[in-house]
C-alpha cells in the first residue's frame, strides 16, 4: 500500500457517480414530463431508487400498462401513428408527413384498450397487447385507417415542438419509426408541410436556420 491517493480518487469518482445515478433514478422520471402529474400512490414511503414506475396493484382484470411509446404505420402505408402512454393516459399523433395530421388524447382502460379523441371528430381506437404493441384503427380527416404500433425505445417515438420564430408560429410533430425513419409535419402559421428531421435522441432540429429542441410528447 504505497500511495492511497489514486485509489481514493477512483473511489470518490465511483461514489459521485453512484450518487448522481440515484439522484437521477429518483428524480429523473419526474423531469421527463413537462406537464405536472400526480405521483402514483405508493404504499410505503420508500426512497429507494425505482427504475420504472410500475402501475400500482395489478389485479387480474387489470392489464399492466407500462409507460412507453409506440410507433408504426397504417395498414395502407400512407401514414404513421405514434402513441405515448404515461400513468394510463395516452397521447397519439397521426401524421402522413405532408399535410394530414392529428393529435389525440384519452385514457387507457383497465383492459388495455383506449379511445383517444382529437379535433374535428378524429378518433383513435386501439388495444395494447402484451405491453408490446398497439393495434387499432384511426379515423382522421375523413379517412379510416388500421394501424399497428410497436413499442419504441426511449426517449420515445413521439416528439413535439411548439415555438415562435421571428413572429411565425411553429408547431411540429414527429414520429420516429422503428428502424429510425421519421415522419413529421411542421405547421408554420397554420400551413402544414414536411418537417426537417430531428435528432432522435435529443430532439434537436433546425428550422429556418434556427436551432430548436423538440420534446417527447406526453399526455
Amino acid at each position, binding site marked *: 500500500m504505497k*500511495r492511497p491517493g489514486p485509489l481514493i480518487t477512483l473511489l470518490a469518482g465511483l461514489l459521485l457517480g453512484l450518487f*448522481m445515478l440515484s439522484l*437521477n433514478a429518483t*428524480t429523473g422520471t419526474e423531469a421527463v414530463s413537462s406537464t405536472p402529474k400526480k405521483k402514483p400512490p405508493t404504499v410505503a414511503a420508500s426512497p429507494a431508487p425505482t427504475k420504472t414506475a410500475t402501475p400500482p396493484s395489478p389485479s387480474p382484470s387489470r392489464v399492466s400498462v407500462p409507460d412507453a411509446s409506440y410507433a408504426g404505420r397504417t395498414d395502407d402505408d400512407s401514414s404513421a401513428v405514434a402513441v405515448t402512454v404515461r400513468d394510463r393516459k395516452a397521447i397519439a399523433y397521426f401524421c402522413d408527413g405532408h399535410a394530414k395530421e392529428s393529435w389525440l388524447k384519452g385514457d387507457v382502460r383497465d383492459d388495455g384498450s383506449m379511445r383517444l379523441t382529437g379535433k374535428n371528430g378524429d378518433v383513435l381506437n386501439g388495444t395494447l397487447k402484451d405491453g408490446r404493441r398497439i393495434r387499432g384503427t384511426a379515423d382522421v380527416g375523413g379517412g379510416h385507417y388500421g394501424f399497428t404500433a410497436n413499442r419504441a425505445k426511449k426517449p*420515445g417515438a413521439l416528439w413535439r415542438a411548439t415555438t415562435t420564430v421571428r413572429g411565425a408560429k411553429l408547431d411540429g410533430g414527429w414520429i420516429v419509426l422503428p428502424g429510425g425513419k421519421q415522419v413529421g409535419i411542421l405547421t408554420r402559421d397554420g400551413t402544414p408541410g414536411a418537417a426537417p428531421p430531428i435528432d432522435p*435522441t435529443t430532439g434537436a432540429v433546425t428550422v429556418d436556420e434556427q436551432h430548436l429542441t423538440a420534446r417527447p410528447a406526453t399526455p
Partner: protein
Amino acid sequence: MTVDPNAATQGFPSPEPVRRPAGAVRYLVPALAAAAVAVGLGVYGRVHDPAGTAFNLAGFSSTGAVKSWLATTAFFFALVQLVSALMVYGRLPGPRWASKLHRWSGRIAFLVAVPVAVHCLYALGYQTYETRVLLHSILGCFFFGVFSAKMLLLRSERLPGWLLPLVGGLVFTALTLIWLTSALWFFRTFGVTT
C-alpha cells in the same frame, strides 16, 4: 467490441493490494480493471433502457448545455494535466509544486467528468446511429477504463519509464476526442449557450 458476459457485474475490482511487486500482476490488475470498467459501462449503456432525460441544473437552458460546460471544464483541466505532466518529467520548466498541480487538476477533471458520464449513460445510453455518436460512446467507455488503469498503475513502483506517460497520454487523447465529439459539436450546433 467483444462483450464479456461476466464483466457487467464486476465494476471496480476489490482494491487488492499488490503484495508481490514483481511479476505480471502489477500490469494484469490495472489492465483487467480497465477492461472491466470499459466493458461494464458499455454494457450498462447498451442494456439499460435510456431514460431520455434526467435532472437539470438551475441556470442552464438544457442538460446538453450543462454537460458541455462540465466537459469543457474537464478538458481545460486536462490541458493543465498535459502541461503539468511535462513539468513533472522535466520537459518544461515548472515550479516545485508541479506534481501537486498535476494530481489535483487530474482529480478535478475526473470528478467533473463523472456527472457528465452518468447523464450520458443514464439518459442516452451507448448509441451507434452516427459516426460521431459511435465514436463518442466507445471513447467514453474507454476513457474511464484507461483512467482506472492509470490510477491503479500509479500505486506500483518501478514501472518502466514510458508506461505512465503512455497511459496518461491515452487518457488525455480519449478525453480530447470525447470533448470534440460532444461539447464542441454541441456548441457548434446550438451555439455557445449556457
